[in-house]
């Protein structure tokens, strides 16, 4: 999914305007109270009584209906309430069996059969294959107008039904018997078991929905399939989940209660964490200026994640329609320097993130090379009479760097701007926009030259990154489309041998890198906080934590 760079689009709205004083005050806080004691922990560290977890998952959830909202803050709640055919592994985020005990694909990965275990809804009804059929049809119904219905477009007939051109009965899902569900797909989708861990595919309670309509997610009405049930929901205040005694794996669920606080301002979150009022918070919250200090503690959770920062280039307008110019702009950025400056991220030259897909032969893009960058610009015609590079010939008025307003995006944009100025002698103006205005502008390819972008994988497979460029519109955002690329990627997905498939995908990625419609910048990093006494919770690549594995360790000897 698209990410806004701060991963919390509203957060910096106020703080952008706040003077350095505030930052100074906050820095002072970390300075005078934690540096002195050299503690391996950040702030107050006292385990709460009992098995209670207090967590900040992001903004107020749009909805607790897993087929309606598409955001990360909600996804972090859904894993508590709804179980899937598969669930994310707490450490690697790879799909592990959950409601489905096992599954098998057909010969070319275009059909998947899942075998369900005996499980119950929180009201005692059995969870059957028919629940999956109902859930998928409801999610695709045009009247529901789900924003994430496109995730199911791999399933036969799904797109037609969602677009109002087909019938629900023609959607490629079938309850073979009460405990077997089969999906027929439009193409080979080897990563399908990983995809069905997504909230959109998790079954929802038919009875409750038919009885209560939109209000079915209220605590009094909700029926869940996951390890927890909803106890309290006070918007912008807190949500409380309590253990679901009817969950199939209830014996292994350790937490009695989870309290979620919907918050948006990073400083406030860090304050609450430091004061020991919350036990964990979501990713990208600790500010760069604190990282060096936080690294000394055991509370800082920092691993690479399935997400990248990159810039899109508008290939439909000069000068970025010239591949030499695109390559020059890419090669003129010292990405290692950017990573060092931002502290947690890793430099990126390819389009898939580093260290996330084991065994994938990731191609390498062009390195940082100022000489070649200038040579390419000379070749593209930006030279004086003597044939030497002349920045004044470059149509700088046609290029600007557009980004959505967050502090982090601004820092990165300023860094890149300085790099181009220093290495190419070009001062590219920066232009910031509010998030929704920015999205609109970018989707219509109205931007001049360069626009910020980010992408978080929807599932654990390189395809979630590469498929951005299989359509001309939508999240492509660059205007670049190459049939060879699309065909290579399609062929790769038809391949059933994983090693061969990866090799073919890497070929496709190489085609993309050679055409350079984007400037890859960094693999992002999880960068979140958790108290030492919280166990069973890991820095995984998606920052979604299946709550059934999490517990509070009260014995300091085991910390």
């Amino acid at each position: 999914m698209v990410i806004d760079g701060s991963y919390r689009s509203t957060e910096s709205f106020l703080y952008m305007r706040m003077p350095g004083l505030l930052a100074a005050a906050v820095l002072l806080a970390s300075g005078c109270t934690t540096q002195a004691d050299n503690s391996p922990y950040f702030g107050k560290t006292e385990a709460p009584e009992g098995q209670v977890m207090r967590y900040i998952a992001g903004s107020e959830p749009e909805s607790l209906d897993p087929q309606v909202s598409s955001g990360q803050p909600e996804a972090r709640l859904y894993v508590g309430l709804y179980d899937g055919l598969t669930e994310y592994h707490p450490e690697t985020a790879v799909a592990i069996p959950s409601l489905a005990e096992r599954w098998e694909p057909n010969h070319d990965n275009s059909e998947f059969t899942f075998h369900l275990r005996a499980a119950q809804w929180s009201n005692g009804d059995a969870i059957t294959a028919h629940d999956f059929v109902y859930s998928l049809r409801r999610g695709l119904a045009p009247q529901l107008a789900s924003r994430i219905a496109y995730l199911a477009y791999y399933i036969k007939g799904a797109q037609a039904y969602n677009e109002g051109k087909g019938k629900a009965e023609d959607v490629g899902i079938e309850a073979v018997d009460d405990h077997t569900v089969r999906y027929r797909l439009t193409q080979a989708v080897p990563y399908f078991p990983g995809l069905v861990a997504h909230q959109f595919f998790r079954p929802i309670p038919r009875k409750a929905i038919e009885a209560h309509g939109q209000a079915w997610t209220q605590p009094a009405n909700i029926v869940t399939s996951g390890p927890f049930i909803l106890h309290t929901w006070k918007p912008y205040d807190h949500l409380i989940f309590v253990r679901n005694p009817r969950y199939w794996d209830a014996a292994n669920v350790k937490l009695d209660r989870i309290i979620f606080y919907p918050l948006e301002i990073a400083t406030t979150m860090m304050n609450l964490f430091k004061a020991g009022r919350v036990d964990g918070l979501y990713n990208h919250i600790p500010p760069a200026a604190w990282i060096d200090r936080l690294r000394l503690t055991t509370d800082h959770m920092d691993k690479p994640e399935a997400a990248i920062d990159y810039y899109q280039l508008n290939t439909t307008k000069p000068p970025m329609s010239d591949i030499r110019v695109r390559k020059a702009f890419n090669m003129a950025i010292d990405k290692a320097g950017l990573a060092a400056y931002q502290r947690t991220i890793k430099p990126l030259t390819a389009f898939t993130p580093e260290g996330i897909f084991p065994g994938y032969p990731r191609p390498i893009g062009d390195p940082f090379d100022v000489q070649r960058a200038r040579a390419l610009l000379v070749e593209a015609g930006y030279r004086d009479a003597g044939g030497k590079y002349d920045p004044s010939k470059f149509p700088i008025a046609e290029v600007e760097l557009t980004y959505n307003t967050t502090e982090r995006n601004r820092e990165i944009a300023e860094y890149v701007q300085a790099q181009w100025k220093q290495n190419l002698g070009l001062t590219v103006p920066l232009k910031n926009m509010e998030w929704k205005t920015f999205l609109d502008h970018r989707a219509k390819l109205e931007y001049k030259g360069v626009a910020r972008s980010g992408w978080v994988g929807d599932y654990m497979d390189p395809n979630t990154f590469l498929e951005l460029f299989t359509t001309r519109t939508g999240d492509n955002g660059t205007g670049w489309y190459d049939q060879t690329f699309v065909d290579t990627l399609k062929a790769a997905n038809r391949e059933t041998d994983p090693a061969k498939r990866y090799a073919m995908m890497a070929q496709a990625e190489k085609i993309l890198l050679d055409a350079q419609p984007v400037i890859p910048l960094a693999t992002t990093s999880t960068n979140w906080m958790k108290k030492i006494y919280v166990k069973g919770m890991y820095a995984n690549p998606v920052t979604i934590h299946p709550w059934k594995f999490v517990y509070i360790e009260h014995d300091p000897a085991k910390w």
Partner: protein
Amino acid sequence: MVLVVVSVTWALIRLAPGNFYTGEKALPPAIEQNLRERYGLDRPWYVQYGKTLSNTVRGDFGMSLRYQGQPVNAILRQAVPVSATLGLLAYLLALAVGIVAGTYAALRQNTRLDHASMAIAMVGISVPNFVLGPGLVLLFGLTWYVLPPALWGGPAHLVLPVLTLSAVYMAYIARLSRSGMLEVLRSNYIRTARAKGLPERQILFRHALRGGLLPVVSFSGPALALLLTGTVVVERIFALPGLGNYFINANLNRDEPLIIGIVAFISIVVLIFNLLVDIAYGLIDPRVRY
């Protein structure tokens, strides 16, 4: 009046680019069409505008676009008490401290006490709440760990936000009541009261305060209206589930019914409080009669 405000707001929302469903992933056109149909965005503008106006008149603002299944009225019912509690407590504190300090300063004009309290008031006016708030959090929440640095809960959670919110008003009221009192204390009717030998206490409470606090009263109407309807900065710093917090997010999310609902509510409150101030004038100041 409220309808005018609502109409202008409605037009402004239309002018802002983006929509409540823009975000996350670029939507396939069919999905966008599904959304437009479901929320009636495919109808002509005058139908949509008419619906907004009739909703406003009926006092039922419909369903939030962002928060599925939540009626705007329900959100208002749950957010207003939070903002109102915060605002009322802050204002009462500001009144209590401000009037006492201001009156004292006026009675002891040009003494050290006067200068000191007016200097503090000046600081109170000059330091914005987004500096004061984190400052208080730093001391009480993060250094001494005595008060929660944020969130909504018991009385302990109220202390820091109320202090942060009331500081500016406290300072204004202190200055207003000081200057009001100074003017009144020099006036003829006070001199008359003194001449007739009334005790100083009675002069102050029965006669001077009445006139001296008029500026405070006229300041109170709009100030109280704004305080009770949510204070964006403080609610966000302390992560409180009040109207201000909703308002900011409603705007960022382009959640039209919620924006309209909050704007209409705030305009009504502002109108009512201005009316109340006019009435209060009549009661306090014998010179004003309608």
